[in-house]
Structure formats: C-alpha cells, structure tokens
C-alpha cells in the first residue's frame, strides 16, 4: 500500500471519528446507537481491508474473518432476541439503596 493511500485512509478514519463525535450531540434518540455502531463498523472494515492487508489476501484469511463476523452476529443476535422477550429484572442491582 502506498504512502498516499495510507494517509488518505487515515484521514477518512479521523473524519469518521469526528463525525461520530458530532452526531453524539444530535438528538437521534433510538437511532443514536445503531448509527454510532455503523460508523464504527465502517472504520473497522477500512482498517481490516487496507491496514491489515485483507485486500492483499485471498481465500483462507478472508474466510476466517467472515466466519468470525458470522459468529459475532449470531451470538449478539441470540442475546438480543432473548433479552427482548424478558420481563424487567426483579433484582435491583447495586450496593446502594435505590429509590423506588
């Protein structure tokens, strides 16, 4: 990867970081978390593809990343699906006295 390309990717990463910070001050409500994670995933993809040489690798390396990402999606999805069907927790956590 050439120096100029590395610097361009770096500038984009820093720009996306600034965008994430700026959007955190916008009242996006329920969309705030997905938007922040989407930008983080974009940055992570850029780093993996360009800086971690995934663009130069074929076959096994890409397959390994794909398998890991699939497992991450499955695990997080199962947890969220299960959590969506839960009743509010009955045990109030924390060592402090919680006001009713």
């Amino acid at each position, binding site marked *: 990867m050439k120096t100029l390309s590395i610097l361009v990717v770096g500038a984009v990463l820093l720009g996306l*970081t600034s965008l994430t910070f700026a959007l*955190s001050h916008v009242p996006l409500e329920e969309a705030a978390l997905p938007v922040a994670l989407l930008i983080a995933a974009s940055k*992570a993809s850029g780093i993996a593809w360009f800086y971690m040489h995934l663009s130069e690798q074929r076959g096994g390396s890409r397959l390994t990343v794909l*398998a890991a990402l699939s497992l991450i999606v499955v695990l997080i999805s199962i947890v969220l699906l299960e959590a969506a069907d839960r009743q509010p927790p009955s045990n109030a956590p924390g060592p402090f006295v919680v006001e009713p």
Partner: protein
Amino acid sequence: MPADPGAHFGDRAARDHAAHLGMWVFLATELLLFTVMFATYALYRADFSLTFREGHRHMAVAIGTANTYVLVTSSVFVALAVAQGRAGSRRICAGLLGVAIALGATFLVLKGIEYAQHVRDGALPGVHYRLSEFARPGASLFFSLYWLMTGVHALHVVIGLGVLISLTVLALRGRFTPDAHGPLEIGGMYWHLVDVIWLFLWPLFYLV
C-alpha cells in the same frame, strides 16, 4: 547451511500467506473473546436501557475521545511503518514505530488519569460502587462492564506496545527487507486489532 533456512516450508509467498492466515485465526479468537463481553453489554443494556443511555454523562468524554484520536493516529503510523519496512527503509520504519509507541503510551497515561478519577468518584465495579449521583438500577453494572472491557482492552494495549517495541528493535537491526517483512505485517495487525476494539468501546461507553 541453506541460504533460506525455512525453504522446506515452501516459497516465501506461501509462508507469508500461512503467517497471515494463522494471525487471522488468532485475531478471530481475540474478537470472540471481546464478543462475549459485548454480548453481556447488549444484554444489560436491554435490561437497563435508560441507565446505560445516561451512563456516558458520568464518563470523562474528553479523555475517551482524545484516546480515540490517539489510537487511530497510531494505527496510521503503524501502517506507514509497514510500508517503509516493505520498502527497506529501516530507520524511517523504526522512527514511525517509535511514534506509534509514544501514542500507545499516551493512551495508557490518559486511561490511567481517567481510572484515577473514577476511583475518586467511587465509580467502581460491583459491590464497591458508590457513585451517589448515578445511583439507579443498572448503574453499577454499567461501570462493572466499563472496568472489565476497558481493562481487558488496556491489557491488549500493553501487549501491543511490547509487540511494537520488539518490531522497532528488529527494524533497527535490519531484519526487514523488501523480500522479508512478514513479522512486521503480522505484528502491525495486532496493533490494528487493539484500535478496532476501541472503536466500538468508545461510542458504547462515552457517547450513546
């Protein structure tokens, strides 16, 4: 003695491919380690949605944000160092790695300042939690996860710094050439992973 002692493992391209594949398998296990913690965060965020959304108001957002810029910039320097190592410019490569090491150390110093502030405030994990301004259901869980996830990440930063220091020494000894620079790429990948993990921790704990 043969000119290339590793020749029986195949040509250099085959060995580089194997090294990258092996590193990606290792990084996949690291990702899954963090995924377990992110899944726990997701579960408790679903249970205590309002508390987790308010958590960032009790965080040092300026320090967390500064650390994000620090780590992303360090990743750029590591990528530049790898490019220079590939080109055979060993002193420039070592210098760029040195800047990345300084940035990594800066991250740890800032994290230490932040941790100290949390200790003073009583924003501690589990039964030690005593932050009265944020005394609501799930608040101690938020900070327990914060300490766990950022603590494990900080440990990875320390290991990553060790890797970068080793690469710098190897670069100064002229071990990286246009034909042989595998360890530089592989070591750099570990540092980039440390950066990638932080890119997700930052919004979850400091912004949203």
